[in-house]
């Protein structure tokens, strides 16, 4: 289940490990038996998320939709091989991610699987912090550049949501995949690692870079945020 985000909770809670739900097992059984309604349920539930995931690797939404269609066939053909060692959706989304990567590599350019993508700068520009020579407050916020909370009502506006979507679309593919599953879909890190074949640590590095960039992109636009840069 998606985790809810509390803005003001003093302590972050660790998510519980994802269970293989009984409900998904029964869907799977029905699917293996060729029941159309079971397939329709899965499509209804996951199609949109799958397209968002595939879009991380494809040049357009239309191609992402084709990829997902192809992935569904892969899922159906592989359904007897699913052994339940991970949640059903983690297994299905792995097929989507792999299909999208293959297709993306053909469509645009090859993405190096090993690299965690281009070497990135810091999450916040260095000039927002006091320099190392500062006798007392080196590495702390420069006065006037420290962040202030964003107004919640602006955050929910249509413009902000559009802006957020743009920021996500500009992320490099691997960062975009991780942020899509973790933050849009609300998956646990364990499940994302399972789906994308990432180590816990690499997953977190990708997520950190993605979130930092998206936050920075929104910051230049939100009222009451730190100075534009």
């Amino acid at each position, binding site marked *: 289940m*998606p985790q809810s*985000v509390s*803005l*003001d909770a*003093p*302590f*972050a*809670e*660790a998510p519980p490990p994802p269970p293989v739900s009984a409900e998904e097992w029964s869907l799977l059984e029905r699917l293996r038996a*060729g029941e*159309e309604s079971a*397939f*329709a349920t899965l*499509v*209804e539930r996951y*199609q*949109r*998320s799958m397209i*968002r995931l595939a879009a991380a690797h494809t040049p357009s939404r239309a191609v992402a939709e084709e990829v997902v*269609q192809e992935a569904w*066939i892969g899922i*159906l*053909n592989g359904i007897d091989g699913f052994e339940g060692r991970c949640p059903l959706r983690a297994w299905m989304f792995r097929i989507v991610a792999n299909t999208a990567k293959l297709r993306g590599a053909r469509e645009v350019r090859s993405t190096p699987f090993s690299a965690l993508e281009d070497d990135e700068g*810091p*999450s*916040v520009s*260095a000039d927002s*912090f006091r320099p190392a020579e500062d*006798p*007392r407050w*080196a*590495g*702390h*916020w420069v006065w006037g550049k*420290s*962040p*202030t*909370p*964003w107004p*919640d009502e602006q*955050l*929910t506006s249509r413009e*902000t*949501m559009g802006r*957020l*979507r743009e920021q*996500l679309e500009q992320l490099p593919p691997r960062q975009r995949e991780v942020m899509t599953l973790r*933050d*849009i*879909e*609300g998956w646990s*890190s364990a499940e994302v690692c399972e789906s994308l074949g990432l180590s816990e640590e690499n997953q*977190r590095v990708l997520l*950190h870079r993605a*979130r*930092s960039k998206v*936050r920075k992109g*929104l*910051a230049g636009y939100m009222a009451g*945020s730190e100075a534009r840069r």
Partner: protein
Amino acid sequence: MSNLRPMDITCKEVVELITEYLDDALSLEERTRFEQHLVTCPGCMAYLRQVRQTIQASRRLTEESLPSGVKEELLDAFREWRKRRIG
């Protein structure tokens, strides 16, 4: 004399530790230092809130409807698959 004890962390470090903090991946000691910093630093508290707001807003991107026609096409593909499977 400096106000900073050697164990203290800076704002610059806090922004790079946020994701580990939110995933509960910091050691107990790092976590304690992180939280000690937060309670005395409105800038970092606001930064943490902005990151959480970013995550919360991202969750709302799921609210879109399935384009019509897509499901029908997939159901056709399913029927094809079933025909091949059952024979």
